[in-house]
């Protein structure tokens, strides 16, 4: 499948953190979720893709172009929503349109206004009077107003209530109906990603732990609940991490079907994305 974004061996060093040879690719027409705990390197990765910070190694290719050398052509086709609101408090959605109209050649006032209506955002009200959810919706409306081919979203749904979150996820799903469109989003709200992502890239301490289609992950991984006897017979290659409690072991296993074949009586549940993330990050590995 043709990929719209390709990231290869990205490196960025800070004093206390290194983004270490991060690679992944986003196929056209799909949604890729970057997951990982706070400080895992999600925002750093997005900033490198957007050329907001300088990379120390690796390559990024967007729409087959170099986003540093062909910055303008690349950025005309991207809509970006960052973690925080970035429009000045005194501006109104109408002002935002007045600015963006002059920056994006593909800006569509009608489309922007349709999003404002869909989100019930008053056109003439100052942003300082907006709630957090309204600000986020405005950011999304403005990111979509120039008909981008790729949306890059950093924690677009965090800090919002479930109703607003689902409203926003619906917009993303509508956007992706066009098979030319793609979305790259980072989030630590794994349930949101479980709902909409096609692919997941899991970052942990600046490295990619895995890059896989979401459905494969959910089909394969499992959480085994067992006692000492079963745990002792498990091969290390089968398990990712485990937690020990008074009642026994909880073990994240890579292939729950294989495990069921081997231990027919064992209790193995399907693992959620959150399980997978937690066991990787917090589970004991040995």
């Amino acid at each position, binding site marked *: 499948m043709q990929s719209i974004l390709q990231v290869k061996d990205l490196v960025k060093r800070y004093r206390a953190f290194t983004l270490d040879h991060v690679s992944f690719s986003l196929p056209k027409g799909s949604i890729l979720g970057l997951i990982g705990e706070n400080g895992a390197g999600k925002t750093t990765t997005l900033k490198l893709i957007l050329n907001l910070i300088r990379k120390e190694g690796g390559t990024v290719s967007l729409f087959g172009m170099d986003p540093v050398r062909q910055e303008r052509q690349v950025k005309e086709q991207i809509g970006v929503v960052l973690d925080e609101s970035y429009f000045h*408090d005194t501006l109104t959605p109408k002002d935002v349109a007045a600015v963006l109209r002059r920056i994006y050649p593909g800006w569509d006032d009608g489309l922007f206004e349709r999003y404002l209506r869909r989100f019930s955002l008053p056109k003439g009200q100052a942003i300082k009077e907006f709630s957090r959810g309204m600000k986020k919706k405005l950011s999304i409306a403005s990111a979509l107003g120039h008909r981008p081919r790729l949306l890059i979203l950093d924690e677009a749904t965090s800090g919002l209530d479930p109703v607003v979150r689902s409203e926003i996820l619906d917009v993303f799903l509508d956007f992706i109906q066009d098979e030319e469109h793609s979305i790259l989003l980072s989030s630590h709200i794994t349930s949101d990603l479980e709902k909409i992502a096609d692919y997941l890239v899991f970052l942990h301490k600046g490295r990619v732990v895995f890059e896989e289609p979401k459905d494969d992950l959910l089909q394969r991984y499992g959480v085994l609940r067992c006692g000492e006897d079963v745990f002792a017979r498990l091969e290390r290659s089968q398990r990712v991490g485990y937690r020990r409690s008074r009642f026994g072991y909880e073990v994240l296993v890579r292939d729950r079907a294989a495990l069921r074949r081997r231990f027919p009586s064992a209790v193995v549940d399907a693992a959620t994305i959150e399980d997978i993330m937690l066991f990787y990050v917090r589970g004991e590995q040995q």
Partner: protein
Amino acid sequence: MKGLFVKDLLVLRRYIRTMAVFVLVYILVFTLIDSADVISGMVPLVLAMMSMAAFSYDELAKWDRFALTMPVSRRQVVGARYLVSLCFTLLGTAVTLVFSLGLGYLRKTGDPAEQLLTAYVVFAAALGFLSLVLPLLYRFGPERGRLFMIAAFLLPTLLLLLFRDSLAALFSSQEVLEQALLVSLPAALLLLGLSFLVSCRVYQAKEF
């Protein structure tokens, strides 16, 4: 770049309104106490400082990080800010010039040629001031930049005081003085151009 320019105007519009009232009140006060000259010097500088408010607002909104996700180059971001500053300074100069010419005409005092020259020199001084301050604001941000701004005011004043005798000697002849005054604007524009290049370099190196 047009979009960024418009953004600065929209963000500053309330500030501009407040400033307009402020300038009007000052004009009134200084006219009443008969020292209109003070305004000719002050207003352009006040307006030159307006662009500095834009830095504070941008920092508050974390605007730059977003601006650079748009199809604009870093050079354009800096360029738009310089253009806004230049326009404000021009506006300030024009307002005071119209005012002092009008006042002179009404009172049948003052020499229009001299008033034009004053506006010319003040405009050059304001640009010189901007040339010093803008790179500092880019380098240190609006908080610390403000301190340097005071330095940018004080330094020329101090130099002027220190070398006032030799300066007086240098400009004793009318001819030299006139030439120096005439050269002031091209010199200030040159300085502004250099300042723009420095600001671009500073801004290129920044990470957001």
